């Protein structure tokens, strides 16, 4: 594996984990968001060598065997998903946010997800879903 291979390419091409999306390749859309050691990072701006010794969580990794993650359930229940392209990044950013702030206000949710762009929904239902997901998690 070339040490300069982008992490997003490792995930999508080498590991067939296509949940992580490439929207821009320049760090400006958040579609490629993953968790590295629990913190949100942009996989389009990371290189393979940087993963040494780190744990990576992609969208494929947050559901349990028999159930969606509470946030995923909330996204579905609240109609927060349209085309779905931004959603893996949104959900993982929300996971990071709720780990740090389990009871965020709507404004704090917007700020926490400010690195994830959505062209479909207008964000309202995404914020509703994260608010509901936070309650579910508790």
């Amino acid at each position: 594996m070339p040490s300069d291979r982008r992490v997003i390419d490792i995930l999508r091409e080498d590991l067939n984990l296509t949940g992580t999306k490439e929207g821009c390749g320049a760090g400006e859309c958040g579609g490629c968001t993953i968790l590295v050691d629990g913190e949100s990072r942009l996989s389009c701006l990371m290189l393979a060598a940087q993963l040494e010794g780190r744990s990576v969580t992609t969208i494929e990794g947050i559901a349990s065997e028999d159930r969606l993650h509470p946030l995923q359930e909330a996204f579905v229940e609240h109609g927060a998903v349209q085309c779905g392209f931004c959603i893996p990044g949104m959900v993982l950013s929300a996971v990071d946010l709720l780990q740090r702030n389990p009871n965020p206000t709507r404004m704090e949710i917007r700020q926490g997800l400010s690195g994830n762009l959505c062209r479909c929904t207008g964000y309202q239902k995404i914020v509703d879903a994260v608010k509901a997901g936070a309650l579910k998690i508790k």
Partner: protein
Amino acid sequence: MRKVLLPHTSEELWEVLRAEPQAAVYAGGTDLLVKLRQGLVDPSCLVCLERIEELKGVQEFGHEVFIGACSTHAYLLANPIIRSNFPVLTKALELLGSPPIRNMGTIGGNICTASPAADSLPPLYVLEAEVEIRSKNTSRRMALKEFIQGPGKTSLQPGEIVSGIWVKKAPGYNLYHFEKVGQRKALAISIASLAGLLRASEKGVIEEARFAWGSVGPTIITSPEVEKALVGNRLSRPILEKAACLARSAVEPIDDIRASGEYRRLVSGNLMVRLLTLQREVCH
């Protein structure tokens, strides 16, 4: 294929830089990796600083604070020394990029990329920060405003890195201000920005002021004329409008894909007037 090297100590780093003098050095990669993908740079070797713990962290030395260059913006935003001493910097870092970008990007990287639009720079200019530059055998300190020479240009020599930033605590400044204008509220490269530190008497008369504008010149713009115009006065609309005119003469904006020079010039002045109505927040 490019080599990517991750030294864990500064000893390893000097060895790597000696062996690979053409290497491009990065920490978070939020600027370099974009340029790499665009084909604007093509180094044969990349050196990532993210594992060098001694380049991270914040330390207090009496009236000065040393900020490790590889401290991420997120780390600094959570750091009580930074939050309590440098609210003008905290305010800017809150608006920089986005949450994942702040988890990856570092203050040293923001400085060394030396974009005129860098959000940490106007606050660091009003704080009169100095960079510490290290190589295998040397260490020097230099005023940030001299370190940055032009868009994307710094005084770094081969074999050198910025190891950290020295910032003096600024007691006596009781008002701070930072605002950036961009095409959206996050993930926005600044079109114009303003950092300010002021000292007002109990009666509200300005005794000292420092300002720095971002994205409206080849480097950060400062203006003694604007600062003098405020000293001895209260912040009133007429005074700020006068300062705004002086600001518009001081800046040197260009047209680019984000905004026209004319717009930027106008906004550089308007940002001064907003000192009146926007939060002129109190430093402790």
